């Protein structure tokens, strides 16, 4: 498995650079993905999306459907894209340490 070194932390990542296990998530990971994503500064809204994603994941073992994410954060999908240019999956879920969903999606 590939690893990523960032500010003294080592993260195991999959082929697409997602963290291999939610247990390995730390706040430094967020800073690392932030650089990859080209986001200048994380504001409260970014953190709200990350927190909602993580809470949902802890409860349900999967990432929320986009519309549920939108409902829980009260952000329109368009706004989520503004916050995370790669989108809720590749941007926000990656930053929050969630795996990608597989199947008919």
């Amino acid at each position, binding site marked *: 498995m590939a690893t990523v070194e960032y500010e003294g932390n080592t993260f195991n990542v999959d082929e697409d650079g997602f963290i291999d296990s939610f247990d390995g998530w730390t706040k430094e990971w967020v800073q690392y993905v932030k650089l990859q994503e080209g986001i200048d500064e994380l504001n409260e809204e970014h953190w709200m999306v990350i927190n909602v994603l993580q809470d949902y994941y802890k409860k349900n073992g999967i990432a929320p459907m986009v519309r549920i994410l939108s409902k829980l954060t009260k952000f329109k999908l368009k706004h989520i*894209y503004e916050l995370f240019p790669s989108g809720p999956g590749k941007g926000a879920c990656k930053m929050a340490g969630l795996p990608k969903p597989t199947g008919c*999606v």
Partner: protein
Amino acid sequence: MVDIPKPEELIKKTDTPLPSKRWENIPADLSPGKFCYPTKQKSLEYLDLPTPGREWSPADEEWPLPENWQEIIHEGFKERLEKYRSLKVFMDICVRCGACADKCHFFIGTGDPKNMPVVRAELLRSIYRNDFTTAGKILGKIAGARKLTPAVIKEWFSYFYQCTECRRCSVFCPYGIDTAEITMMARELLTLVGLNINWILEPAANCFRTGNHLGIQPHAFKEMIDFYCDDIEEVTGIRIDPSFNRKGAEILFITPSGDYFADPGIYTMMGYLLLFEHIGLDYTLSTYASEGGNFGLFTSADMVKRLNAKMYIEAKRLGVKWILGGECGHMWRVIHQYMDTLNGPADFLEAPVSPITGTKFENAASTKMVHIMEFTADLIKHDKLKIDPSRNDNKVVTFHDGCNPSRGMGLLEEPRYVIKNVCNNFYEMPENTIREQTFCCGSGAGLNTEEIMELRMRGGLPRANAVKYVHDKFGVNLLACICAIDRASLPPLMNYWVPDVGVTGVHELVGNALVMDGEIERTSDLRFEPLNDETPEGNKGEADE
């Protein structure tokens, strides 16, 4: 993830001249972006499948083959030739006439001769000749035989995961060779030595673990359905309260998990819920059998059987009379062509009869499973639905026949009949691209994964091209389909090639048109888009990722 070229660049690369070397002498291209990621160890272990014992990438020079891999493949091949007479016939009878050669969407989109179905089959057939025929054993290369080497395994992995098992080639084969079954056999053999792809086997493992491919647990499943019921109430004023795992219900309804997780499938789910409410159907949803799809089909017969059995075990446990299945594609290839001999006949259920019209579904007398398109077409035929098709007037619709419902079960008229009754604007794509000649979405059979996006856009080009034709000619802005893989894979395909065309399930259109008793005046469709919006539908950036 490898970036893919822009459409105008990619289109120029599809007209590749044939290589000057013979196909046997060209190694498979397994550079990044050209292969699907291998299955993660944890999913293989979960499914009790052979594991390679270490992490690996198809781009690696050395693949993690077990020490006796040639023996495993040989014995596995032998066992399957004895078990499936069809495989032996398909290996023997091809005369290499080439009728199939240009019928494959991957050949059209890549220009790679190994994507001609005849050559794809030849990858396996050459080993068959070498190992199992006298001519091949004696004459070797002259008889089209070749030895099984690691390069052949790499080639199999590359090209049998560049086939969507769509069976368009089989329609044109004068011998009726089912090339999908050749791909299935090759994938089985690869699985025996631990080689397969994560996009297929993680869903299969999830399906055993939580009931569905996406790994949605029972409480989350219920929460999602409740969420759609909230949306339905907002649009229609009608509150629907479906039951879960309810013993004694007349009908068990099973649909692919994409219908309750992914855009735009979720609107199709709302359509089902509205329809069942409209007719007062006595049905239940199951959190155990919460998956209509069967990614086992893309791995092995054994895995198909294990996943398919869940539906019937649940139907038996709940004591329902029969099973109604949602808009899914490959699910119906399994039900229609394999279920009966794998797990059937399902004698503990009753031959399906529509409780609303009294129609007996003779075609499902043995499997006890009815496709929702047959069910709804029958309702409309008997005038049991109150429909206002004008609510879909801002939608100019064409229909994509899913490979499996069309070629796998002959479901050609029902979806068209339903669409024409719930929509006023319907146009067919050219005749050699629909019905039994339909072109694949380019992402079926477990290939709807992002790491091969360029291949998917190439494979989907013939389908997209036909959509573009009706878009340009008739102003089509919506592509309807009855398959969850289609609903997942056609939006990116349309965004890439025909960006003004959106994607919908047929029951989303039904849900929009249904006039419910006691409903409020509808001002928006199920996507909360205004009913009389004249602007084209488009994909509106709703699809995840």
